[in-house]
């Protein structure tokens, strides 16, 4: 990978990290309602996916995907600040504040919406993919799912149906080792989710989800396969999330140290960039800019108005109005 491209991805990863750090701070201060799941630690996978998805593709983001949602806005002519405003429940959010973190969508940039019933869109993605196939469009329909989410029956219904119909689905499984506190090997017959997928007979690969180059290249390959009409593809990204559980950190210190210090996606990319000739100052500027834009977006969100109260009963049906109180 050349320096320029690597720098772009580094910038994207920093935007995700700064966004999530700023959001986490605001959440802790009580400014963000509801629940918060951050993508901290999983920036490489998200940045690499965003880099390969076009506005005419579709992705279903998981509950840690604020970052990919923001990058899709940036890449396809939208506004990152509208993702932030949505998380604050404001009128200027992508769903007018009605969705929040767990239900942010913006079809204009290919974002088909998170679903807080984890992985429900493993079934939904089939329909988007089938429509592309029937219309002979070379689009990719991507479902982003956690390791724990692969325990759902829809996982198998989806992979089977995608296989028998050769649907253009990219399954991006972010295996961060745990479902809340349940270790992946305890919750599944294999700690390698890719083993569960293999029986369906389409290409399945496991990769280092914190290595931005590997992520970028493997996704590029998978997306090319799908666009060529060769059917579904399954990628398992081995990664790790900074966020522990509500009860606090439960993972061994050595594990935390490994993932945060020795195998952090941004630190690893930074080292690679210096090898490729980037300066430490240049990298510092990227970080600084990401933090600045995040603060601007937070201010924008906080200054945005709350939704018009009429929104509470708007758009329940297309064909009927629902009466207010």
């Amino acid at each position, binding site marked *: 990978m050349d320096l320029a491209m690597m720098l772009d991805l580094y910038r994207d990863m920093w935007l995700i990290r700064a966004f999530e750090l700023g959001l986490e701070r605001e959440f802790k201060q009580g400014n963000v309602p509801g629940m918060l799941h951050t993508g901290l630690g999983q920036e490489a996978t998200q940045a690499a996916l965003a880099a390969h998805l076009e506005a005419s593709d*579709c992705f279903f983001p998981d509950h840690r995907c604020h970052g990919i949602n923001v990058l899709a806005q940036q890449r396809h002519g939208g506004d990152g600040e509208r993702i932030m405003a949505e998380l604050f429940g404001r009128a200027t959010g992508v*769903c*007018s504040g*009605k*969705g929040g973190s767990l*239900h942010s*969508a*913006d*079809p204009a940039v290919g974002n*088909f*919406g998170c*679903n807080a*019933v984890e992985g*429900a*869109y*493993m*079934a*939904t*993605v*089939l*329909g*988007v*993919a*089938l*429509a*592309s196939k*029937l219309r002979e469009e070379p689009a990719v*329909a991507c479902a982003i799912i956690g390791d724990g989410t692969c325990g759902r*029956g*829809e996982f198998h*219904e*989806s992979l*089977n*149906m995608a296989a*028998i119909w050769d649907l253009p689905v990219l399954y991006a499984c972010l295996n961060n080792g745990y479902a809340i506190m349940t270790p992946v090997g305890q919750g599944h017959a294999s700690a390698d989710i890719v083993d569960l997928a293999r029986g369906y007979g389409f290409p399945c690969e496991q990769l280092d989800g914190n290595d931005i180059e590997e992520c970028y290249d493997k996704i590029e390959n998978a997306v090319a396969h799908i666009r060529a009409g060769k059917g579904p593809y399954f990628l398992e990204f081995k990664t790790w999330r900074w966020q522990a559980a509500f009860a606090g950190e439960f993972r061994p210190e050595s594990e935390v140290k490994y993932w945060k210090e020795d195998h952090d996606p941004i630190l690893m990319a930074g080292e690679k960039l210096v090898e490729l000739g980037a300066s430490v100052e240049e990298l510092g500027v990227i970080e600084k800019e990401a933090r600045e834009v995040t603060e601007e977006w937070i201010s924008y969100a906080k200054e945005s108005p709350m939704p018009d109260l009429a*929104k509470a009963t*708007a*758009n*329940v*049906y*297309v*064909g*009927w109005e*629902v009466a207010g109180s």
Partner: protein
Amino acid sequence: MIAANTPASVDGPTDGPGGKKSKTTFVRALNDALDLGMERFPEMFLIGEDIAEMGGDFSVTKGLWAKYGQERVRDTPLSEAAIVGTCVGSSMVGMRPVAEIMFADFVGECYDQIVNTAAKMHYMFDGQFKAPLVIRTACGGGFGGGPHHSQSVEGWFMNVPGIVIVAPSNPADAKGLLLSSIESDDPVLFLEHKALYRARGEVPGGYHTTPLGRASVARQGTDVTVVATMRMVPMALTAAEEAAKEGVSVEVVDLRTIRPYDAATILESVAKTGRVVVANEAPKTGGLGAELSARIHEECFAELLGPVVRVDGLDTPIPFSVPLEEVVLPDEADISAAIGEAMRNSR
């Protein structure tokens, strides 16, 4: 007790535009509607288990696979969540899928896709997506189907904002309501009572729609209103005939759409008669009768001459053995008794 193959006693209404009418079965009327929909909407497709070459368990899709091909009439494995998921996703991008869930009892397998994805799609993303899909499913008892092939599931969905529940009682409405459901931009759960499949009635020819969200007055009367759904409608009409012999004039309102329902037609009828029976096959507690009864009391208390009387299934699963099933499910005699009670127990 009506067996599955007993013809219903109701003919279709005469609201069809143009087209010659002919006497045909409920199944045939549904099949015609699907055929006409497929012809009119290139973005429409059918999906379900053994609906293609076989034409479905009840022959509703018969002949459509041969006519429209396997891309538009799609067989699936036993994957109800994936069937409905495919409908939801494709409808998000402008297709008009019509799924068949073989028996309504299996909607639990795809409940999440219907309730949490399809029904909330338009709302939670604030209008950015629509889910114009139809889920057809065979419901109701009366044929010895037992606990997992006989249920009336409308109550499972009554409490779900965003879903449309359609429930025809005769062939003409089956056709007209199915075409309206296909045209609808909201997700529709389309209930087909198995005991009505072979019912015959006049059906308008050609493309003909019956509006969603509108009840019909299946029989005019002045003493008691019976609000009924699906198989309870022909039963209510029979009970009304019986009551007429005793000098009691019964108005039968066929609800047709269970959610969002047509309160105006019900309330107008109640204002006229002052006495109400609500007849629905599902278990009583928390059911349609409870909802309508509450609404009528809230909005028409002054006009009521007595309390609303409910006719429902018992609060049990549906047993297999025929005499037991007869105990559990409501029939004409129960409606007749309810009409009698409404007359007696009134000011």
